[in-house]
């Protein structure tokens, strides 16, 4: 028996087998696709039933929310991803985050007059909570989103966690409004400033918030000392003055206090939580 066919008939045989292989692979792929889409349907159905059972809890409990988002991360699913088609949207949780995002913007815009482009994260959470409880000017932007199906009204007790704020800010990213959570002097601060902050300004703010000792305020000399903390020359006094001047006059991030005992002090409102009685 010839091991290798030669000639026309052999070529024909070869083509036949290639044909059947490709038919086989197509049918296999079809089967896999069918199986996959079945799995996906099951997954979606489970998510849907999960959402109907636990939605209230997801919306009202920050720890439950964070567990759920961890779970999603482990599965490689971005809950808010894909814009309006995210899984959380299917569950009605996406709206919750977009509404939170709008409230954060609202609060940050109001605080911008006071502290330039930065607000303490604590302060944002406090103000958003007041807003959601129907606090001052809630009628303006404070409504929870009503778009798409049922309106989501979180219960008045609904707590907001720092990671909720972080996620809501991530959801705002496509708008390019420059919102970001940064750490300054051991404090988390929401930066709502289009365009970056000058590095020298940021160091002045760091000095005011220096962990452990920071009073939220600094004198020029303290800024100078701060720039020399790791040894070396540090800044010249001219550079210190220029940085303080810029942070105050251009960025509006500092307030001067001329009645401090030991000379002028510069306060950074973004490092403070302004607690208001209700």
């Amino acid at each position, binding site marked *: 028996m010839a091991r290798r066919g030669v000639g026309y008939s052999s070529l024909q045989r070869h083509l036949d087998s290639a044909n059947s292989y490709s038919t086989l692979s197509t049918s296999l792929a079809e089967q896999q696709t069918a199986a996959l889409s079945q799995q996906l349907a099951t997954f979606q159905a489970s998510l849907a039933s999960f959402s109907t059972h636990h939605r209230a809890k997801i919306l009202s409990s920050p720890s439950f929310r964070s567990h759920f988002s961890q779970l999603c991360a482990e599965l490689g699913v971005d809950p808010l991803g894909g814009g309006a088609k995210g899984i959380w949207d299917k569950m009605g949780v996406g709206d919750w985050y977009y509404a939170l995002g709008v409230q954060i913007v609202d609060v940050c815009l109001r605080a911008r*007059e006071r502290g330039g482009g930065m607000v303490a994260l*604590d302060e944002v959470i406090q103000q958003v909570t007041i807003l959601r409880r129907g606090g001052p000017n809630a009628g303006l932007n404070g409504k929870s989103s009503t778009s798409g199906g049922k309106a989501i009204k979180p219960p008045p007790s609904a707590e907001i966690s720092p990671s909720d704020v972080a996620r809501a800010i991530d959801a705002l990213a496509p708008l390019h409004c420059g919102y970001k959570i940064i750490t300054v002097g051991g*404090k988390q601060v929401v930066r709502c400033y289009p365009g970056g902050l000058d590095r020298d300004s940021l160091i002045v703010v760091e000095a005011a918030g220096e962990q452990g000792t*920071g009073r939220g305020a600094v004198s020029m000399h303290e800024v100078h000392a701060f720039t020399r903390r790791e040894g070396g020359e540090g800044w010249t006094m001219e550079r210190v003055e220029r940085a303080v001047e810029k942070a105050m006059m251009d960025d*509006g991030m500092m*307030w001067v*206090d001329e*009645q401090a005992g030991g000379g002028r002090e510069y*306060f950074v409102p973004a490092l403070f939580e*302004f607690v208001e009685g209700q």
Partner: protein
Amino acid sequence: MAMTTAPTPSSAGQHKLSVQPLISPRGFTFPSLYSFPPFFTQQPNEQTWAHQRAQWITLILAYSRFHKTYRLELTDETCAGELFHNKSINRRLHLATLRNIVEAMVAAGSAEYDPPKPAKGQLPTAALVFWRKPEEWANLIYDWIKESGLTNSIMTFYELTEGGDLVHTTEFYQLSEPILRRALDVLIKAGKAQVFKGLGEDGDGVKFV
């Protein structure tokens, strides 16, 4: 003066800076900004100052409403008072800064210098504080007159704001006379009141129509 809440920008345990509202002995709640030391220094940044000034105006109006005061003397004594002097952080507003704030209030119609035009070369000495606009006072008075069936009768200014059992319950009880006059001016212009020059001790009178 003893305040009920300590205003320390606290840093207990976890490093957390916060400023708290203060409650005065008479029960007025100062906003947290009142415990923020630089609030008492006029800010050089124009935008920050606009915000600071607006916060001071809100505070002045709320404080005046709470204590039912209608007049602000533009003096150092005023700046040493509770409203402009937070003793617990040892900060006070300078008279020059207060003048700038009041100027903005006058421009916005929430205050009026008294007298309206200071003598030549002089700075204004006092201002009426309109925590209600004269138009609002006018409506309050006129509504009350109608409800009480007092149209067409003549009342003295004193009767209207101080006298009798009737007036005690109204919001304009003990309204200061300059503000009463401003409110009545509004009603006169609308043809709803006439003012009569008083004779002797009775003072001026008013007839509502």
